[in-house]
């Protein structure tokens, strides 16, 4: 039975506390588009995406109206393109990126993710060519996202790929230096990548997924912060309970929207990703939740503990609210996309090292961090290796999305605008890790990979 308090609470969450559905993402398998003729393959890719997703945006808009809840992004994730590129050796993989962009324009979606390669154990046909084409692909397209999985708990870390990705990240930033290095903001390097992630830039449609499905990514840091602010004297376990209850409500909304989209589009429902995803908007910050718990500023001592509790409580609350939880599910800490993180980084309180520690207890990794433009590619590789090691050993997903600010140095800022926000250039260590990175090879999988 409806009651007035519940109705007003929901409306307040949406109106005042920035509650929204961050994305509905349609996962589409492109395995049946493989062709030895790259032009034919591109045409098939375009046709299949448009065939499956032409109604995605209007359906999203209809659901927005029906439930009065904003759905910020409509996105598509596809099979890693390296698998299609493998069938046409010598072809330029950028053609696939252009076909994806054409499909994104036709369908009106915000992003297509899946210009990706999975190389955790080594490069197979198509992988290296695709990775080397990433800088150009991201420079000549606007809405395409790319990801590369370079490690996993099961396989260890492919250090040759780590070395290559250091160069690719730098080159991607250089190719888009005239646009605030935006290319690098669309490229993420994973360890333990998940196959049903609806969030960008890391979304791709895994080979074990069905032909087509709908995922939903919820948001709502503002709602959690606001709920906590009503209990200034509560103990930590009481706070955890409040977060669980709030996460339950947010996730139920995601489940409702996903089920509705699945029905309207006649596509199976995949997962709800119950992540707290911040935006640069006032009142939509994960950092501010941590500060509400009692930290003077995010990044100070105690931040990792607060984040660990938050991440765990979000999962516990959300898991009962959805029939299938998946994706990354937890708290995101993208620096440039979070007003509180931006302030903390600009004040020098939030350092790269602290962020690295935080990634050991939250759902992703070093995300949307702006580093000096003169950073050595080996240093980027070393940061990727550190982060991948945390993921590999802790059996969790970690990711790196660094943006080298070409031509800028510490103290300056990159402005991306929109959901991507803006980020102060953060300092990195000057001592070289080049000898370590240039060794190549593979870091063996940890002992606990041998579970069978």
């Amino acid at each position, binding site marked *: 039975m409806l009651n*007035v308090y*519940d109705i*007003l609470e929901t409306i307040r969450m949406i109106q005042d506390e920035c509650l929204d559905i961050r994305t509905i993402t349609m996962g589409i398998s492109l395995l049946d588009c493989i062709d030895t003729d790259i032009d034919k393959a591109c045409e098939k890719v375009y046709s299949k995406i448009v065939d499956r997703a032409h109604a995605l945006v209007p359906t999203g808009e209809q659901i927005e109206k*029906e439930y009065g809840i904003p759905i910020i992004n409509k996105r598509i994730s596809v099979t890693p393109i390296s698998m299609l590129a493998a069938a046409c050796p010598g072809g330029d993989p950028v053609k696939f990126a252009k076909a994806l962009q054409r499909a994104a324009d036709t369908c009106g979606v915000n992003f297509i993710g899946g210009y990706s390669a999975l190389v955790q154990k080594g490069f197979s046909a198509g992988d290296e060519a695709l990775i080397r084409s990433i800088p150009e692909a991201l420079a000549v397209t606007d809405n395409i996202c790319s990801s590369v999985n370079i490690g996993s708990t099961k396989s260890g870390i492919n250090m040759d790929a780590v070395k290559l990705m250091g160069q690719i990240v730098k080159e991607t930033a250089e190719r888009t230096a005239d646009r605030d290095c935006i290319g690098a903001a669309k490229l993420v390097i994973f360890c333990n990548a998940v196959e049903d992630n609806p969030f960008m830039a890391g979304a791709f449609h895994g080979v074990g997924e069905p032909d087509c499905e709908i995922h939903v990514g919820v948001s709502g840091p503002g709602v959690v912060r606001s709920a906590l602010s009503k209990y200034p004297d509560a103990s930590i376990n009481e706070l955890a309970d409040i977060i669980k209850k709030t996460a339950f*409500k947010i996730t139920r909304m995601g489940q409702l929207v996903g089920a509705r989209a699945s029905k309207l589009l006649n596509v199976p429902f995949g997962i709800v990703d119950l992540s707290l995803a911040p935006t640069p908007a006032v009142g939509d910050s994960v950092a501010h939740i941590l500060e509400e718990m009692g930290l003077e500023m995010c990044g100070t001592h105690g931040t990792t503990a607060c984040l660990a509790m938050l991440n765990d409580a979000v999962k516990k609350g959300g898991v009962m609210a959805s029939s299938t939880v998946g994706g990354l599910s937890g708290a995101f800490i993208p620096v440039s996309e979070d007003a509180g993180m931006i302030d903390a980084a600009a004040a020098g309180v939030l350092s790269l090292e602290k962020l690295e520690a935080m990634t050991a207890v939250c759902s992703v990794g070093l995300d949307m961090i702006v580093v000096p433009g003169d950073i050595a590619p080996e240093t980027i590789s070393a940061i990727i290796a550190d982060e991948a090691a945390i993921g590999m050993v802790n059996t969790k997903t970690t990711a790196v999305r660094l943006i080298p600010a070409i031509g800028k140095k510490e103290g300056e800022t990159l402005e991306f605008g929109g959901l991507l926000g803006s980020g102060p250039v953060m300092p990195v260590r000057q001592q070289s890790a080049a000898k370590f990175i240039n060794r190549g090879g593979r870091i063996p999988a940890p002992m606990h990979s041998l579970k069978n």
Partner: protein
Amino acid sequence: MRAVVTVIGKDNVGILHKVSGICAEAGGNVIEVTQSVLQDMFAMIMLVDITALSCDFSELVDKMTNLGTELGLSIHTMHEDIFNSMHSI
């Protein structure tokens, strides 16, 4: 199927009349209304049966939103499922 219409804003003559008029025009049957006026703030929640709507639900939403803009009120029209799913197990 039911929808919840909430109206919040400065009290004025004829708000209930106009909102229920739009419902009637669209074939929506008003089932329940709770309303209060505190000082000069008007707050109303209306439960509307939308099973036999003569137009799309989204059209009704648009008409209500436009009325809200016209009268300077905040009017939300939402399917009841969102409240049921968020607040009950």
